[in-house]
């Protein structure tokens, strides 16, 4: 009887640790989303700039990144990045070795990969805005940056949101891969817990349910955002 009670207690400890790991999953997801959005905006700007070298660079980036598995990219950046960083430091005359922080490596990788998808999303969204809008802004004497912030950005949000939502949902699920480079996210903790407690199913199902909660909540939030940015437009009645 006593053993049963102890087991019960142990189990809840594992669930708490997975919940704690969920915070890390959220942190990795949001940080990666930030990186991906920044890269996406830069990439879209480069692709639409019309300057040959920039267009080639951005096209090469989106093509190569979308052609390689995420896991492979993550291992390349995590293990390769550490060695690259160390040889760079050696070149600069420092003899201190550094280890690449797995959080940084994970966020960089996921941000770098989804930056490629975001580039396409934002490029399409900007192309969907009537050109007259930008031309009118220039005619008013707005510079490129002000035109982007005041005219392009508020309008492209509406066009970009559906595809942005898709990318975000895929990105959340991709963060499970950071458990493979030693980050203690909820997938990592679930695997540890199931090995330690000899309870194969429960922890993985619990983690899966948490992912479902994340996707459900973000869908609701993004739906509201989409409604907010579609305020001035009529829905087509079919």
């Amino acid at each position, binding site marked *: 009887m006593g053993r049963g009670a102890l087991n019960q207690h142990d189990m809840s400890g594992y669930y708490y640790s997975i919940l704690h790991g969920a915070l890390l999953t959220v942190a990795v997801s949001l940080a990666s989303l930030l990186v991906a959005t920044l890269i996406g905006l830069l990439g879209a700007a480069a692709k639409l700039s019309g300057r040959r070298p920039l267009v080639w660079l951005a096209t090469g980036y989106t093509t*190569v990144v979308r*052609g*390689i*598995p*995420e*896991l*492979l*990219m993550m*291992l*390349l950046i995590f*293990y*390769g990045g*550490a*060695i*690259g960083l160390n040889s760079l430091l050696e070149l600069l005359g420092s003899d201190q070795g550094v280890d690449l922080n797995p959080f940084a490596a994970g966020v960089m990788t996921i941000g770098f990969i989804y930056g490629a998808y975001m580039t396409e999303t934002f490029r399409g969204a900007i192309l969907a805005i009537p050109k007259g809008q930008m031309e009118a802004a220039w005619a008013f004497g707005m510079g490129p940056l002000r035109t982007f912030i005041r005219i392009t950005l508020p309008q492209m949000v509406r066009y970009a949101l559906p595809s942005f939502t898709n990318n975000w*949902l895929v990105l959340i*699920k*991709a*963060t*499970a*891969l950071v*458990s*493979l480079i030693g980050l203690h996210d909820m*997938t990592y903790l*679930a*695997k540890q817990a*199931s*090995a330690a407690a000899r309870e*194969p*199913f429960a922890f*993985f*199902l619990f*983690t*899966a349910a948490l*992912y*479902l909660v994340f*996707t*459900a909540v973000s869908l609701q939030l993004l739906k509201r955002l989409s409604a907010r940015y579609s305020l001035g437009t009529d829905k087509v009645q079919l």
Partner: protein
Amino acid sequence: MNWSVIFEPDTLALYTQGLVVTLQLTLLSLAVGAVLALLMALALVSRSAPIRLPVAAFTYFMRGTPLLIQVYLIYYGFAQLEWVQARWDTVWPWTHFKEPFFCALLSFSLNTAAYTAEMLAGAIRETHKGEVEAARAMGMGRWQLMRRIVLPSAIRRMLPAYGNEVVMMLHSSSLASTVPALLDLTGAASRVYSDFYLPFEAYLFAAAIYLCITFSLIGGCRLLERRYLGYLAPRKA
């Protein structure tokens, strides 16, 4: 950079072995997934809730959770159940759960089946109303209508989206390297990395191979689209 190690016969043999496993996993998962997807798509467009809802719940779960968790659920979850392990020496379907290849294949097939089923169900729902009415007027029954009219055009219309899914499946197959004792292309690269401590060379070489396969798959899909979706292409002047 030290590429000479990569091009030694032993290393190349390791990569080849990994490549074969990757291709086997990708193609077999797609084949099994396609059959399951067809059945599930028919269930998803069914009018009867007891048929539709369980399949919808399944696709919701598979599409909403990471593939890595699904692989773990099958390899560390299902295959470690005492009930399964008690049977996997003797009783037929359970004997396969001993093999890491089968566990990976099962999780990949179920995953791609869920995505493909939703795609196909979407394409079936988009079928033009007039086509269905015309077929009914010709006296076709439910299955005949499905087999002769709805499915051929729905499968054609989902081709572009399915092309993406094929590439995704190739990339997902890299998760096989997380199952111990299974050496796919990513696993081979990791082995080369740990043997020679050459991360850039080991992973970049594998990345180049993946890129080549991705491009051939995309090219193949383009050909199929030109063949089967030619009637939807813009008319040439």
